[in-house]
């Protein structure tokens, strides 16, 4: 070959004259899309390939350094290897969002090739460079073990499992998307290629707060290959926002920026390379201003206003009974202040969208948590009827709440309409970290009282949230923090004040747990202090106060028949009590469904087409597995198998709106809609003697809505939410203070997919441990200091033994076969349980997350 740099890729000699990261060559030139671009910094491992038998990050290696090497990607695995990994990962539930998976497969293969029978430790070490944010690694490790066993000939592939004839509720169901995610041919937005597609990217503010005096983009515009440069003037309506439209698409000349993620102009260019060059040619004149960096600063009387209406973004006052009197008359009272940090979602797939002119509007291929939400925000920006915007989700590489707001979608749509071509916008990892809303940082003061027997009497608390530059979902998140600050217990006097303030920090919004991670951390810690005063164990005080069916929650809602908090407490009792001085315990509850009087509807449409049932419901599967759950519900109702039901995905043009993937709601709310539609179909199917072909062309639509009462409704027992999930976690430390085991017992009603629910719990627990010990989001004058690799995300060698336990009751809710959500609650009780374990060990009360002076913080410090 005449090219300068030649090497073998999947058995074929390849060459190029360009020196660039091998990742870019494999993706852009060879279109090997299994090689994912998660950070391009060497930190995440999604681009792992095999080079001369070694697992290597292709973003680190260059075409020049690859000369003469033998390169393999998942596309180049042998048929035997492909089948082994697909089956093993599907069977063990190793796949969630899937973005890390091809990299995991390659790291696993490189190990198996050297060590055919690897130990758990060896697998963990081999995965050290690969981050997974969904699974907690356990199921990936099991998947690699099984794949190795199959390749050795010790285990066999059971083909019936993937075929899925028995696919109903509770079955060992193989996820729908395993094959495409394991082999890497499933499409995320960044894998989309279209004729004439161009690229757009925003030039973002250099300062968190500065007046934009002038924008000099002439040189960029003059660069060959640059199609256009857009500024705020090109945006029909320059405000977007999930609930409150306070978020400038771009900061106009003369206006003041609110955070470093703010876009100032948007460049559209023929290629990524030209785009990068053009961005460097833009010069912006700023008048730098002092940023508002904390809630305290935002509250100051002379504070600069981040938004014209003032810095108080949202507030809530949740009260019932008479907390003041109850606390005054309590035998024991504890008051304590707690601090929790911002947390980055760190989903493996950075934000990306492809938009192109479509019919009388625009179509957006997206990666988000609600295609109708994205449609709404984009239509507001254009000032259009929503129908002119079509949003379709491709695979979503993790969300955790961080993909509820528009990020890349609206600017892609804007650019596509301007240049009249398909436009791809993909965020760099740092752009993602700087831009999207985080978990709110909290400062809160909690006062909890109890009587001489440890029975809670009342709670008074004041919660301050830093919502950063934009509201995002501040209102509902703050509200959930307030309503859930009471915990899953049974007392009737509460006075809870919550305030969310704007600052110039990056915005904060939805994040798995939705405000409850913060407030229940504080509450559960106070409970331990009360237990100590009363002289009973932390387990005992929780059991004495635990909510049970028929009793009244602190918000007035009567706990329904499915409530199984006590069962979760009993499930972990032995584990807790057999580790004195080393164990911590915490409970949690989390709503399933949006509730609080909102029209939270699930919708599903089934169409019989080509002898199969097509399932239409715009409910984003962000990796948690709801698309599979819906098919399981339909299979349970109709008796059909996986191969006869096709989930058509979330597309606003063809699928009915089934709400946001938020509030742990999809399994219950959309699941019930699917069940209802499937029941109608099943009636007709019975009439047709079970012959699906006779129903060809028939449609079955269902909408599920179970009304709730709004916050503060003047009714004796307001029903805030359709359902609550409950959980108890026990964290056990070793003598060094390292987490050895976590027992996580969950009441999520009926378990639809046992493997998936374990994966949700394990992943949630590891996220909770990160929150407790290692994850932080340091800011310096409102500017994020963390890179992806320094966020403190736990890696495979750090994981403890996580025991996912689910308790299933006889009595269940009459919806969705009795299933309640699991998505968020798994993350909530882990951090307070970990804090309780440390308190049990050294009797130092740690009121700040991530906790200081732990095994983990010492390890971090030792290296600085």
């Amino acid at each position, binding site marked *: 070959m005449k090219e300068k740099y030649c090497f073998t890729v999947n058995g074929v000699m390849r060459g190029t004259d360009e020196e660039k990261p091998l990742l870019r060559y494999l993706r852009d030139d060879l279109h090997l899309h299994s090689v994912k671009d998660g950070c391009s910094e*060497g930190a995440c491992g999604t681009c792992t390939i095999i080079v001369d038998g*070694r697992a290597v990050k292709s973003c680190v*290696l260059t075409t020049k350094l690859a000369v003469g090497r033998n390169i393999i990607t998942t596309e180049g695995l042998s048929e035997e290897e492909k089948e082994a990994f697909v089956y093993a990962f599907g069977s063990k539930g190793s796949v969630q969002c899937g973005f890390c998976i091809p990299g995991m497969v390659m790291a696993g293969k490189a190990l198996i090739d050297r060590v055919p029978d690897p130990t758990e430790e060896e697998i963990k070490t081999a995965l050290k460079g690969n981050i997974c944010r969904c699974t907690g690694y356990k199921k990936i490790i099991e998947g690699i073990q099984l794949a190795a066993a199959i390749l050795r000939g010790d285990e066999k592939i059971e083909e019936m499992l993937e075929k899925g004839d028995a696919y109903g509720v509770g079955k060992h169901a193989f996820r729908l998307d395993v094959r495409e995610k394991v082999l890497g041919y499933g499409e995320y937005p960044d894998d989309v290629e279209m004729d004439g597609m161009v690229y757009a990217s925003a030039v973002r503010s250099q300062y968190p707060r500065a007046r934009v005096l002038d924008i000099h983009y002439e040189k960029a515009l003059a660069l060959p290959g640059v199609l256009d440069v857009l500024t705020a003037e090109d945006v029909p309506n320059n405000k977007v926002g999930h609930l409150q439209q306070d978020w400038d698409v771009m900061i106009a000349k003369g206006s003041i920026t609110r955070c470093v993620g703010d876009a100032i102009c948007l460049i559209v260019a023929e290629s990524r390379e030209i785009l990068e060059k053009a961005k460097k040619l833009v010069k912006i004149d700023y008048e730098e201003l002092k940023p508002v960096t904390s809630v305290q600063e935002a509250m100051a009387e002379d504070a600069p206003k981040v938004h014209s209406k003032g810095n108080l973004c949202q507030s809530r006052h949740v009260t019932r009974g008479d907390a003041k009197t109850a606390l005054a008359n309590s035998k024991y009272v504890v008051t304590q202040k707690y601090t929790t940090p911002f947390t980055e979602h760190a989903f493996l797939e950075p934000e990306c969208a492809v938009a192109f002119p479509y019919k009388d509007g625009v179509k957006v291929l997206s990666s988000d948590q609600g295609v109708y939400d994205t449609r709404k925000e984009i239509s507001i920006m254009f000032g259009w009827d929503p129908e002119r915007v079509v949003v379709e989700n491709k695979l979503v590489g993790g969300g955790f709440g961080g993909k509820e707001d528009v990020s890349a979608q609206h600017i892609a749509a804007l650019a596509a309409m301007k240049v009249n071509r398909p436009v791809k916008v993909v965020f760099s990892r740092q752009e993602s970290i700087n831009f999207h809303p985080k978990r709110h940082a909290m400062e809160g003061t909690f006062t909890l009282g109890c009587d001489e027997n440890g029975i809670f009497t009342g709670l008074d608390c004041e919660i301050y949230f830093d919502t950063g530059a934009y509201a995002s979902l501040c209102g509902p998140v703050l509200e959930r923090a307030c309503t859930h600050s009471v915990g899953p217990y049974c007392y009737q006097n509460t006075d809870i004040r919550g305030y969310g303030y704007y600052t110039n920090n990056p915005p904060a919004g939805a994040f798995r747990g939705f405000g409850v991670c913060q407030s229940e951390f504080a509450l559960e810690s106070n409970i331990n202090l009360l237990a100590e005063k009363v002289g009973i164990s932390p387990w005992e005080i929780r059991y004495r106060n635990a909510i049970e069916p028929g009793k009244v929650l602190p918000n007035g809602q009567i706990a329904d028949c499915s409530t199984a908090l006590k069962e979760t407490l009993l499930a972990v009792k032995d584990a807790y009590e057999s580790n004195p001085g080393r164990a911590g315990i915490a409970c949690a509850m989390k709503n399933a469904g949006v509730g609080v009087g909102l029209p939270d509807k699930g919708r599903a449409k089934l169409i019989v087409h080509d002898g199969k049932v097509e399932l239409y419901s715009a409910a984003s599967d962000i990796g948690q597995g709801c698309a599979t759950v819906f098919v399981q519900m339909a299979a349970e109702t109709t008796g059909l198998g996986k191969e006869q039901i096709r989930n058509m995905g979330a597309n606003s043009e063809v699928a009915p709106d089934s709400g946001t993937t938020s509030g742990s709601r999809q399994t219950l709310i959309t699941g019930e809609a699917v069940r209802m539609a499937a029941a109608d179909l099943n009636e007709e199917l019975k009439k047709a003697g079970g012959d699906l072909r006779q129903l060809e062309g028939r449609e079955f639509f269902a909408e599920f809505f179970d009304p709730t009462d709004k916050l503060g409704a003047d009714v004796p027992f307001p029903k805030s939410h359709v359902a609550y999930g409950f959980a108890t976690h026990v964290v056990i430390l070793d003598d060094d203070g390292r987490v050895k085991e976590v027992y996580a017992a969950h009441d999520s009603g009926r378990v639809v997919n046992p493997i998936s629910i374990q994966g949700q719990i394990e992943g949630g627990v590891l996220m909770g441990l990160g929150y407790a010990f290692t994850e932080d989001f340091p800011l310096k004058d409102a500017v994020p200091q963390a890179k992806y690799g320094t966020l403190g995300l736990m890696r495979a060698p750090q994981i403890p033994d996580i025991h996912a336990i689910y308790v299933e009751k006889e009595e269940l809710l009459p919806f969705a076969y009795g299933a309640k959500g699991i998505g968020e609650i798994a993350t909530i009780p882990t951090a307070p349980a970990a804090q309780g374990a440390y308190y049990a060990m050294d009797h130092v009360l740690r009121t700040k997350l991530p906790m200081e002076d732990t095994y983990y913080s010492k390890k971090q410090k030792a290296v600085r």
Partner: protein
Amino acid sequence: MGQKRKKRVAVVQCAGGCRAEAEVPRKERTGDCRAMAESSPEGMCKWGCLGQGSCAAACRMGAIRINSAGAAEADREKCVGCGLCVKACPRNLIRLTAPEFHIYSACVNEDPGAQTRKYCSTGCIACGICVKNCPVNAVRIEDSHAVIDEEKCIACGMCAVKCPRGVIIDYDGIFTVREGQVER
């Protein structure tokens, strides 16, 4: 699952780029490393490998050899991590690590960068490019050379690729070329 004892392997922290070779050819050097260290010839790096093979002599596995650059190099396949070489080296250049850390800095000199640049082609000049490019903040400059913290390192190879002097080495020979590869 049974836990295997974690394997350790020796790492020689010098790539042998000292230019003294030209002035005092190795053939003319006599004695073991300790003797050599005492008579340290003019212009020779006072931190790096002396190349007289005391470590190789101490090794019972035949895992250490002196490579063409004149520096000791450990073979991880043969090495059992006993540590005899560590004791044998008068300059404390050899340390033990886990095999997964195949990326390592092969220089411990404490002279200022400008001086190092003069007398050694593979010496760390403390430019800090590795520090800037490490995705997990595992590299720092200490006493004028790069130090990789293995508590944090994920062996991605970014520092090895970016190092302008070839100080940071990939034992696997993927990110940097390794002489041993040719011979194996």
